[in-house]
């Protein structure tokens, strides 16, 4: 009957205990040859949540700490440990949906010596994160945990080759709120690196082994309830040498060999393996103060070997097997500073690519100019543009263009900035494809009165692979902010659509210059998304912070078997007041999140499970004190 009273009393005694501990707090503590510093927040909080009708609430301890120290000498050994428990909601976009805990720690050994080493360990439990969707500024809330361990050791003897070895291992699992199953990813990486400089030659050699094992539930894609599992491992060897040349010149040669294996076990077992070698060299010279020239050459025996790493860091993206994909690229360029504010450039490139048993070639002749002007009336302009003509094995393939303009103007209290770029028929990584696009960004801001400011911005982009229908990406965003004294109001609206790649951390837009045709169709989806939101922030009195934000987004992803509609809305309120070293915090979060699957016509797909809209509310009220224990 009086259980709550007991909890309050226990929490009170605990706080009293910490208060007593703080009494001698004054300086660093010394234990033998160990110096220690410990400080942090300790407090109690009452929190509760309502997860689709399931209500829970209670009183508990909250806190975070910072322990730092050294043994014998900070250079000999120093360390930091930062644990946190039931972390306050201001640390997460999603507020206090989950009470995260964890620890971040590092140990450094022999700093400043010829043999420094370090160890780091981080662990995060019960945290709230985001499954990203391009253009969706809220994303889908997901919960989970991660941990990673890092080790590093170096040999830095003067006059001898340096050597650094590092190893990192990270693992984590997450699940999107309201959906069954969970995604997991384990990554292990070994890095070896050596450098040596002798007689002006700077040499570098390295080896990287990487292993990724992951499984993820494709809730936005195929609708399969069974997790897809995949393994990806790669070994990379690299070596390079550079040396200065007369006339402020330099030359460099780089070699890279990558071998990778990709295995997918569910729902359909498949495996692929390949390797690629890349050799490149370049020479640059400045024969005259205003003239610079350079040539470079690159040979690649499997161009696609480097594509997955350029899309997602995890590398867990399968590419189509086009067989051997050899490429030879030769290029020469020159630039000349014609006037103080005008420079011109010229470039000639020739590339041969061989795949599907055929050879494709293209020669590109281009020229361009950079020009900038500052005029008190017009403001500042910065133009650049280049035109190039492409000749391939079939004859003249047409003219391409790359250009842009930057503009800055101050007038009548306003500051206006604008930036625009345009590109037409720019070569992608595969000679068969070219890409075109444009982007723009403008913003205007003004000081309306003392401590009163206004800002508005508009930005957008559009890109398309010319020879491949349905590969366009576009995005637009409007935003505005108004600040009056310690009050601020912001708002935004954005929309985007295009082609994206599934990864375990969310959808990633296909980078410009990578044709979607070289990626596995099962990894791709069409997406569109619209979002809007606003936020309020205020500091009505000193040491009191209040903020509230609302955002709503909806969109869809479409692949060959399923259309998935997503919608979510998030309201978040928080306040914090500080009195000396006492912090009083409170907050409220409401998340609505829904996924609805619609089978494409004739496929018989029934959609994802867990499609009912999810509503989670949580609230938090707590008091904590910062202690400098020792």
């Amino acid at each position: 009957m009086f259980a709550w009273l007991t909890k309050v009393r226990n929490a009170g005694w605990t706080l009293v205990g910490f208060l007593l501990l703080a009494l001698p707090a004054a300086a660093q503590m010394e234990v033998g040859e160990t110096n220690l510093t410990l400080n942090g927040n300790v407090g109690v909080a009452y929190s509760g949540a309502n997860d689709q009708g399931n209500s829970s609430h209670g009183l508990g301890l909250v806190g975070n700490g910072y322990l730092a120290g050294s043994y014998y000498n900070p250079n000999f050994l120093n360390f930091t440990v930062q644990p946190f428990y039931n972390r306050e909601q201001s640390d997460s976009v999603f507020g206090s949906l989950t009470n995260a805990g964890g620890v971040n720690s590092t140990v450094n050994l022999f700093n400043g010596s010829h043999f420094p080493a370090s160890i780091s360990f981080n662990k995060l439990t019960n945290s709230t994160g985001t499954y990203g969707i391009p253009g969706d500024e809220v994303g889908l809330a997901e919960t989970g945990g991660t941990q990673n361990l890092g080790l590093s050791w170096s040999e830095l003897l003067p006059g001898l080759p340096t050597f650094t070895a590092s190893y990192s291992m990270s693992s984590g699992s997450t699940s999107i709120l309201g959906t069954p199953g969970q995604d997991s990813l384990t990554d292990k990486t070994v890095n070896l690196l050596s450098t040596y400089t002798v007689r002006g030659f700077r040499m570098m050699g390295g080896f990287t082994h990487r292993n990724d094992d992951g499984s993820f539930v494709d809730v936005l894609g195929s609708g399969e309830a069974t997790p897809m599992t995949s393994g990806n491992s790669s070994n990379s060897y690299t070596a390079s040498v550079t040396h200065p040349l007369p006339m402020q010149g330099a030359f460099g040669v780089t070699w890279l060999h990558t071998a990778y294996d990709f295995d997918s076990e569910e729902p359909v077992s498949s495996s692929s393996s390949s390797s690629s070698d890349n050799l490149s060299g370049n020479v640059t010279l400045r024969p005259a103060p205003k003239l610079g020239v350079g040539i470079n050459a690159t040979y690649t025996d499997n161009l696609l070997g480097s594509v997955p790493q350029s899309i997602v860091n995890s590398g867990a993206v399968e590419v189509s097997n086009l067989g051997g994909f050899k490429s030879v690229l030769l290029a020469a360029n020159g630039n000349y500073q014609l006037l103080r504010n005008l420079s011109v450039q010229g470039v000639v490139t020739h590339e041969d690519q061989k795949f599907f048993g055929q050879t494709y070639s293209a020669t590109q002749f281009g020229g361009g100019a950079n020009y900038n002007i500052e005029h008190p009336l017009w403001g500042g302009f910065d133009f650049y543009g280049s035109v190039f003509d492409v000749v391939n094995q079939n004859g003249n393939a047409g003219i391409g263009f790359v250009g842009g303009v930057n503009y800055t103007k101050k007038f009548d209290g306003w500051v206006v900035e604008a930036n625009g770029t345009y590109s037409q028929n720019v070569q992608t990584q595969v000679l068969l494809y070219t890409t075109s696009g444009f982007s723009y960004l403008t913003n205007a801001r003004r000081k309306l009165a003392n401590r009163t400011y206004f800002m508005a911005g508009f930005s957008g982009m559009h890109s398309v692979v010319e020879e491949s229908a349905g590969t366009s990406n576009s995005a637009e965003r409007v935003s505005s902010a108004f600040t009056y004294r310690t009050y601020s109001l912001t708002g935004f609206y954005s929309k985007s659509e295009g082609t994206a790649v599934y990864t375990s951390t969310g959808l990633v837009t296909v980078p410009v210059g990578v044709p979607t045709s070289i990626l596995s169709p099962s990894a791709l989806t069409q997406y569109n998304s619209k979002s809007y939101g606003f936020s309020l922030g205020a500091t009505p009195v000193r040491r009191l912070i209040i903020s509230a934000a609302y955002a709503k987004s909806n969109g869809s992803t479409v692949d060959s078997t399923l259309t998935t509609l997503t919608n979510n809305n998030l309201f978040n309120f928080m306040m914090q007041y500080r009195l000396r070293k006492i912090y009083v915090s409170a907050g409220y979060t409401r998340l609505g999140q829904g996924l609805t699957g619609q089978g494409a016509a004739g496929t018989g797909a029934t959609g994802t499970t867990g499609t009912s809209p999810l509503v989670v509310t949580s609230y938090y009220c707590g008091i904590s004190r910062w202690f400098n224990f020792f």
Partner: protein
Amino acid sequence: MVVLLAAPAWAAKVNTEKTVDPAPPDLLLEGGRKLHYERSFSSEREMEGKRGFFTKLLDIAIGEPEHPHLVRPYSIAVDSRGRAIVTDPGANGIHIFDLEEHKYKFIERRDKDKDPMRSPQCVAVDAEDNIYVTDSETGKIFVFEPSGKFRRTIGSLKGGEGYFKRPTGIAVDSAAQRIYITDTLRDKVYVMDMNGSILQTIGHRGTGEVEFNLPTELLVRDQNLFVVDAMNFRVQFLGRSGTYQTSVGRLGDMSGTMFRPKGIGMDSEGHLYVVDGLWGVVQVFDREGHLLYYFGSRGTRSGQFQLPAGLFIDRDDRIFVVDSYNRRVQVFRYFGLPRQAQGERR
């Protein structure tokens, strides 16, 4: 959990004694004169008296209050009540340390809609202890009552802009009812009446007599006006009307030369004290420009300076030096010859 946390505290040697930085020895000078280091101060905490039992208890419960601290102090003046008034561009305000009454006050006008004070630079007080502060950013002079209450601005144009391009040094001559201002970017010294009306301008850009290259600090003493001619690396001695008398200093890195002259002051024996910001020393010259002695060096210990700036000498020959980068004010005391001996020497 509490016991576990407490265990190492019992076992450990807790170093609760604050490391005491020994005061530098007295500097013994010719004829029995000496320079004595007195103290330094940097925050409200040092102005407080002994804390009572309940105050201590409250401190344990909710922590000690935040004591305002010097951030980037620049200039200093001491009024007739012995209060040290320190401008602090880093904190956008003015600290008033009452060394005798153990009180502290901070003045700021950063957030005011009308006449905000953005970068307080140099400070002076008049005979009634009104406080005059130059604001190098807004181009105005702010006048505060001794209590710290804002009274008015000088040099404010219609529309709120300041008349001066970069006002820095300031001196107030209450007897003559004159205010002297250096406008560093205009290379001029302005002479105004107490209402702010400009009566005279002194100097223009150059390296000759009554010519300046970025003049900064000012000092009015007896019938003389002393101007720190910063980038000519000298201090010019002028008459009240701007007539040239002599100058002290030249560019160099040896004793008697200057590299970044900053604050100036004059003791009861008429010796001129000049702070060199880069070398971290205060050099003392006689009226003929001969170097008498110097004190200080670059460092963080008592008696050492890092980027010292302002200097003020009160009527008791206490020398206040703003040790800007060390975020403190150091106080020395000059013990000169007794008055009688001074008379005999003259």
